[in-house]
């Protein structure tokens, strides 16, 4: 059975801190790994990763994939209160399998 596990389940940090969110996966025919941000509404797409070791970056957010060890990390530097959200990762084979998410809370 396909499985995606995220850690930690929740994280509380102060504004300005750097955080690292983890995602490990086991899927049969892996194609890609996706990261989404979910505030009090629909998940919004952040990154799609298909190749090991190639960092994807968007502003203060970055992500990298390790296909040998079957995990990905999402880094957020200089966190802001607007980064407070649930961060979801999902592994793609013929369908998306989601993790349960990491709830990130940024304290001003």
């Amino acid at each position: 059975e396909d499985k995606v596990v995220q850690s930690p389940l929740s994280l509380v940090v102060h504004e300005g801190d750097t955080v690292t969110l983890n995602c490990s996966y086991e899927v049969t025919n892996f194609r890609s790994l996706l990261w989404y941000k979910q505030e009090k509404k629909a998940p919004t797409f952040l990154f799609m990763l298909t190749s090991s070791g190639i960092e994807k970056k968007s502003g203060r957010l970055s992500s990298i994939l390790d296909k040998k060890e079957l995990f990905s990390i999402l880094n957020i530097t200089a966190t802001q209160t607007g980064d407070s959200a649930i961060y979801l990762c999902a592994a793609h084979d013929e369908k998306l399998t989601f993790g349960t998410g990491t709830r990130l809370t940024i304290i001003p």
Partner: protein
Amino acid sequence: DAGITQSPRHKVTETGTPVTLRCHQTENHRYMYWYRQDPGHGLRLIHYSYGVKDTDKGEVSDGYSVSRSKTEDFLLTLESATSSQTSVYFCAISEGLPTDTQYFGPGTRLTVL
């Protein structure tokens, strides 16, 4: 934002009643999906469609049916709603391949009393 709307956005209904949720897209994307999101389970796929009149089951399809008579509309029906179907339902779309990025609609919060 991808052009995806869902209706209704909120619904309260009683056990045993039929319920239909609608997803409408303006992107002309081939694939459409229905997920439910529950605490502790994350997003789980109910059904998906890969074209007009072409649908398939996801991991939690029992008690749900779908229809897609037009590219832009994907309907999810609960024939006889149960309290275990209380959830937030999200529609998603992707362009031309099942491995393309999926974009999500705003969600429908359904409460079954």
